[in-house]
């Protein structure tokens, strides 16, 4: 439950920061820096590329997932597959953008994948709570970077 609340707050903070930015118009495009508003809405070819790349990630994950139980027998197949897909997609996301908003989403995706793996092996409630705190911190830092890049922090 704590994880849901922390994740919800992180998402809300990020959404508020991102929605507080000026609309992306042609005029704003001319003024926008590369890290603030560009690359938020990719072209059609960009979507095709992303779907194609994500498919490759999923195929790679399916091919390596069967090897994981020999290292971590505590985990079920669903946990392994779900976590590796999240980690793979998150890493793909991180490799495709330098926009703070999307980078933070990528990091949160990777961490959520890791948390699924880790929850299966480490049962300490304190560790899980601290991991939720890290998610929340990432959301706040992401909002800070988004607003800072837009010059709204003064």
């Amino acid at each position, binding site marked *: 439950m704590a994880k849901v609340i922390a994740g919800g707050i992180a998402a809300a903070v990020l959404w508020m920061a991102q929605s507080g930015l000026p609309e992306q118009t042609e005029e704003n495009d001319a003024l926008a820096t590369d890290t603030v508003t560009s690359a938020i809405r990719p072209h059609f070819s960009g979507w095709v590329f992303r779907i194609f790349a994500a498919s490759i990630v999923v195929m790679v994950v399916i091919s390596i997932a069967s090897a994981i139980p020999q290292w971590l027998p505590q985990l079920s197949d669903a946990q392994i597959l779900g976590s590796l897909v999240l980690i793979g997609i998150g890493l793909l996301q991180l490799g495709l953008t330098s926009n703070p908003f999307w980078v933070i989403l990528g990091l949160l995706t990777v961490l959520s994948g890791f948390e699924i793996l880790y929850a299966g092996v480490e049962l300490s409630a304190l560790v899980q709570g*601290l991991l939720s705190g890290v998610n929340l911190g990432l959301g706040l830092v992401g909002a800070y970077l988004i607003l800072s890049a837009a010059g709204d922090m003064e």
Partner: protein
Amino acid sequence: MSSPIVWIIFPGMVSVILLILQRSKMVVYISGTLVAVLLGGLAWLLPIGESISIVSISIPFGDTLVVLGRRFVLDANDRSMLLLIYMGLAFWLAGSWAAQAGRLFVPLGIAIAGLLTAALTVEPFLYAALILQVVVLVSIPLINPPGSHSGGGVVRYLTYQTLGFPFILFTGWLISGVDSTIPNVDQALLAYVMMGIGFWLLLGIIPFHTWIPLFAEQSHPYAAAFLFYELPLAIMLFGLGFLDSYPWLQDAAGLYTILEIAGAMMILIAGLFAAFQTHLGRMFGYAVLVEIGVSLIAVRLGLQSGGTENLLGLFFAILLPRALSYGVWALALVALIRYTSIDQNNLSANSTELTFRNIRGYGRRIPVAAFSLLLAHFSLAGLPLLVGFPVRLEIWRGTAQISVLLAGIVLAGYSGLVVGGIRSMAAMIAGSADNPWEINETRIEIILLVLGSFVLLLMGLLPQLFTPALAQMADFFLQNSP
């Protein structure tokens, strides 16, 4: 009363109070610096684990604090670590006023010192990875103050550090159940791989180094230098503690080879990039990479030495020259940026302006900053008579005893850093000889830079003043080593 309350809880409280008072810049600066000096002094004076007698009252001064079932243990053996952290903090805070490092520098600097202390003392130590991640999150407003544009370096820094900590967490889980005994082969192999990837990411070892030069180019030089000093130091101390807790980790045949190759490649590649660099900020970033590389080599020498000749002392002996050189270099860069904004009539000038083209002839217009910058650069490059030379000479000697080829690679990297320094010098003294000499630095810049340069020279001439004391700190680490 216990030691973690003094060196973890108290700095945290001071940090919050100073954050509230941040509008009173001078108050925050003076009180923050005094608190850092006080905590460093207490680390020297207080008898940890014994009783403190005040008049006729005896107060027990324990070494353990329990929080939610987890222990923070700061015993007498940690005294040197506390001195490193808090005297280092006092050094950086003292220069922050002249460096105009921002309102958040002092409160967040103190918070980071407290968190680093917590990370290095928490048990079970897997929590350290989480605390180090909190340090990274707290450091973002420090290096990217409100209102400044977040460059790609900050985002990459956050990315690599966040990707690194799950690996350390996982390693901690893998080996926490086995204490000091040797686990089965599969488990050991997985632990090595996880630990290797984790530290590779956290320390910015090639190819995960790209954030460091970018960060040095885009961020405030002084805040960047502070982080470049504190974070790798804490991560390496954490890594040494890791190896000390589980001696079987040191038995892997590949560990030494990996440390050698990683260190030598860092020095070589960073040195080569420095030789061709045309931006003073990025040049500093490459010097930082060389420093991380030489630290890895020093750890490798120390792990294998043991016995009477504990070469791990080299890792600690290099810290003071590094802090001095980073501090002087960063202050000089700040002076250069300030003068660039005047010279180009650009009030928003930042570190991205420090290209060789923009600083042509600055050696005659801000000679104190230019000369100090070159001294700091050549000190990190290991030129004789400067503070960096004696320890590096020992490291080069130790490296040559392992492999002549390795020593050749390391020296080639250092040669690149020297070439970078010569090119910086050439850029700064370029221009007509008819141009008059001027001094355009502020008074506080002149005082601090002259003092720093003097210390760089003096300690280079008299290394026996500081090297033995710093090298002795190694005795408190790797107590379980063979």
